[in-house]
């Protein structure tokens, strides 16, 4: 596989909270666009090889857990220790109020309307439309001080997002919350995750998509690995990975853009197989012992 490897860019995080060195949407867009003539084509056998590797590991887990154990759903939270909603809803997550979920609703709004008027109010309206009344009630029941603090936190994220997120023309086909779920071992193990934002038109045998991930403040390295994990899932789903990734950190305004390389996919597949090969107790007990 030959992938273009221009300059991976990671802007340094500014000290403290000041987003003085924050990036701009125009910069991110220019880096995502890159050299339009150099969209990579790559080995059509790569996806099959990666799948075979993971299937072997998955069948070993099934052999340990038993044929009739319920399906094992694994996302970035379990596999990578991600604590960001980058990975989408995780049924195993605890029930604490997570500002990350609200920031993600603001990203969706920004992508689809280009503006955020009232960060907390808009996020609450989005949660209501999503039928998430539980979170709405919890936020509305906050005391004045806590609510003000939440509003200020969201306003800071919204400012950085507004500066950082490119305004994609509709022709780029921007879509948010693109869920990926890859069944292994006949569906007994499911690897899942969610792209925060994908742009581009899928083309057979050509990596033609760009994926953008939103980190709301967790470790940068984990958020970056989560994007590599999602790239692996996309490779398994469509046969090709996204060709370029952008990670946007809304709390600081910093960002990074890099190409997807074969070694990223191999590294994350290796991590998954090692994770699956670990102590079977970590995978959940079979229902009948």
């Amino acid at each position, binding site marked *: 596989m030959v992938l273009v490897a221009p300059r991976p860019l990671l802007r340094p995080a500014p000290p403290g909270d000041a987003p003085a060195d924050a990036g701009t949407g125009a910069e991110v867009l220019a880096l995502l666009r890159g050299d339009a003539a150099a969209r990579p084509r790559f080995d059509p056998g790569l996806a099959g090889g990666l799948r075979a590797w993971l299937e072997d590991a998955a069948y070993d887990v099934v052999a340990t857990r038993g044929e009739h154990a*319920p*399906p094992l759903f694994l996302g970035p939270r379990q596999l990578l220790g991600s604590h960001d909603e980058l990975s989408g809803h995780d049924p195993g997550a605890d029930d604490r109020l997570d500002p990350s979920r609200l920031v993600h*609703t603001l990203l*969706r*709004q920004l*992508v*689809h*309307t280009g503006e955020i*008027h009232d960060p907390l*109010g*808009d*996020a609450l*309206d*989005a949660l*209501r*439309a*999503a*039928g998430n009344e539980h979170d709405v009630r919890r936020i509305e029941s906050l005391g004045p001080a806590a609510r003000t603090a939440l509003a200020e936190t969201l306003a800071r994220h919204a400012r950085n997002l507004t500066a950082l997120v490119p305004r994609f023309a*509709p*022709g780029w*086909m*921007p*879509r*948010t*919350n*693109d*869920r*990926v*779920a*890859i*069944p292994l071992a006949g*569906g007994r193990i*499911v690897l*899942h995750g969610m792209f925060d934002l994908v742009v581009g*038109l*899928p*083309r*057979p045998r050509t990596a033609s998509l760009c994926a953008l991930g939103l980190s709301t403040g967790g470790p940068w390295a984990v958020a970056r690995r989560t994007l590599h994990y999602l790239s692996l899932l996309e490779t398994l*789903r*469509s046969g090709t990975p996204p060709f370029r990734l952008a990670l946007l950190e809304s709390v600081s305004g910093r960002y990074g853009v890099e190409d997807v390389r074969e070694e990223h996919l191999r590294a994350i597949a290796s991590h998954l197989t090692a994770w699956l090969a670990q102590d079977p107790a970590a995978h959940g007990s079979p229902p009948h012992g």
Partner: protein
Amino acid sequence: MDSRLMDALVEPVPAVDAVAWRFALEGAKTKLAGLAVRRAGATRFRITDHEVRTALTTESDDPGRGEPFAWTARTARRSIGVAAVRLLAGRAARSPLEAVRARLAESSRWVGEGSSSATQLDRWVDGLTPAGRAAVGAEAVTWATRLWCALDWSSFSSPPEIGRDHWWDSPHSALLALRGRADVRTDHAHLVVLSGPRRGSVRAELALVTLVESLRLRGDGGPGRVVGWWPDSGHLVWVEPEPAALTLGAEAVELALGGAGASLRSAA
């Protein structure tokens, strides 16, 4: 474009033994007639893929299945999404984002004008704040983009029918109706966009589409292949128009109505 999906939609369906087909169709009609007579006097009952799935799965297979219906960004995405894809196919919009915006604007216009076209969904959309509407639009854009980008729309010999559900009303009881849901219908196939986990009930859900198409057919010709597609995984499952599909569909209806179908339940 998903070449495997396109192949499933355009490849010719296998030939079917006409005698066996007629026999299975008559058997399905007889079973449905019996069900209608048995339920005479009951409240109206409409069998959709949802009822089949509910009858064949457990709470752990399908979390939230018992919750009452409410419009949310998630429950609205298919209705808005297919309308958007229809606009794209008709060249009335150039991108899913534009198409969804146009459809949402249509909701407000219909409600504002008091149009008879306005549905419960239109009134719900119209009542949302701009931020709520953005959330609904975002969900529909993703749904529509995945479908729009998965197919080679120019390769169909005639324009596909997009997002039209087909109903069959029992001639034996005005209270029994079956719905076949398909998101795209071509000359040879019916595409059903699936969500949620892979489940044992899916073949019965698709067989219901085969059954409805077969019951609605007039004259010669078959109902076509029914293709289920999970955009999350790219996984495909399809039901060929075979006699066994009619039997499966009729058994699924029976089970959804609380009848026997025990063999079907255990198979799922």
